[in-house]
């Protein structure tokens, strides 16, 4: 173990374990919402999909199931490989996750928008969610792009930071799903309004948290 690994090892391990736990829960939620609820009729968030929306979503899935499966696989791979990619970046190492995570993130960003448009405005959140998915794809691709550019140009701190920001975006579902019923209940909103509210707060909030981690906890040192 190098001096650097010894110095940053403990907080890095803690971040890795916390990240992996978040990633596992997020992966389960995404696979359930985009594949399993159609295949085995097991919806962890049944309250978020009223009958009309569930019917719309089932029709979209049956029309193009491959997009849903590919998106769920890419998103799950991104959230599960993210912590390892970040840990490798902090420790100055490169492993399979260093390649898998950016690739899976790019795939999930693009496929997420494809699936959103396949679901169409008849799904939860309506047209607003189509804008959200388009915006997320753009922001996520830029975040991954900056981390790849920084890696290629030897800016290791920047690469680490933007890997963390990208991982924060990959984990958006873990805060969005619980927030939807909360806002629907707290503000007596429709599910659509609560969904728009939740994605707005989560999208900006995850950036705030990932920026806090990079600036306040990790600093500019590797």
């Amino acid at each position, binding site marked *: 173990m190098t001096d*650097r690994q010894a110095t940053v090892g403990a907080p890095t391990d803690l971040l890795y374990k916390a990240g992996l736990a978040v990633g596992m829960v997020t992966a389960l939620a995404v696979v359930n919402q985009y594949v399993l609820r159609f295949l085995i009729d097991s919806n962890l968030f049944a309250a978020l999909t009223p009958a009309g929306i569930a019917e719309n979503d089932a029709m979209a899935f049956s029309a193009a199931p491959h997009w849903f499966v590919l998106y769920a696989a890419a998103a799950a791979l991104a959230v599960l490989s993210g912590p390892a990619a970040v840990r490798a970046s902090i420790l*100055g190492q490169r492993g399979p996750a260093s390649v898998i995570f950016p690739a899976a993130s790019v795939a999930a960003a693009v496929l997420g928008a494809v699936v959103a448009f396949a679901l169409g405005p008849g799904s939860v959140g309506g*047209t*607003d*969610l189509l*804008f*959200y998915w*388009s*915006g*997320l794809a*753009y*922001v996520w691709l*830029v*975040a991954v792009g*900056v981390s790849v550019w*920084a890696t290629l*140009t*030897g*800016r*290791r*701190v*920047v690469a680490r*930071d*933007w890997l963390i*920001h990208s991982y924060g975006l990959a984990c958006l579902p873990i805060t969005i799903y619980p927030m939807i019923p909360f*806002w629907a209940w707290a*503000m007596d*909103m429709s599910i659509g*309004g*609560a969904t*728009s*509210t939740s*994605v*707005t*707060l989560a*999208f*900006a*909030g995850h*950036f*705030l948290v990932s*920026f806090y981690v990079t*600036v*306040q906890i990790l*600093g*500019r*040192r*590797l």
Partner: protein
Amino acid sequence: MASVFEVRQGRSVGGERVAVRLLWAVFAGLCVFYSVFAFNYFISFATEQPIWWNHFMAALLSEQYAFGPGSVHADQAAPYSAGLLFLLVHTTMGAVCLAIGPFQFSSRIRQRYPAYHRAAGKVYLTSVTLSMVAGLAYLSQTPAADVFSGAPFAIGLWGLDFMVLLTAYLAYTAIRKRDVVRHQAWMAFNLSLIFATPMLRIFWLVFGWTLPSFNQAEANIGVMTYLLPFCLLGGMIWFSLQHGGRKAAS
């Protein structure tokens, strides 16, 4: 933490530096340009004079989009009248932030005129605090359904105001500890959040041009979900370029 926080002014080179300066000039220009409209908005509203921003939007798009159903002008007259004092403070103080904020990031100004930088920073932090507190006071007294685009946008504004206050506090505490890098990080984040105000108006214009079936309220809610991350990208990338030198510290 300051000891582990090495200042690495990772100066970008060549085309990268030119690109950063160009983008900064565009950003600063937009901020100052919109600050004039922001300053005018509620002063004109209170004195029943023509509101420059509305007329600017009407000239670029249409009277219908600027003044018709679904526009701020048509939908918000009553709630704005009820909360006029808070909104006057909110927008005039916000305009001050937009007018002076971008220039705080000029290394030339910081190095040549450090006293000005410190004074302007104090004005910025005072203005941003007053603006956000007034914004929260307006949101507190206005039913969420009466806020433009309804409750989802109202909650988004609550979130934005708290994030601005939090990041202003983090920037302030950092500079009190002489932690320049963290100070710059949080100020970049903070000003990016403030920049959401002119950026939202730019998106209204873009929606008006590209999606003519949308009114302002629909454009507003369509933009809402990704507006803040879109703005934050710029500030976060700027910070990375300033403090992400080519070689990692060991």
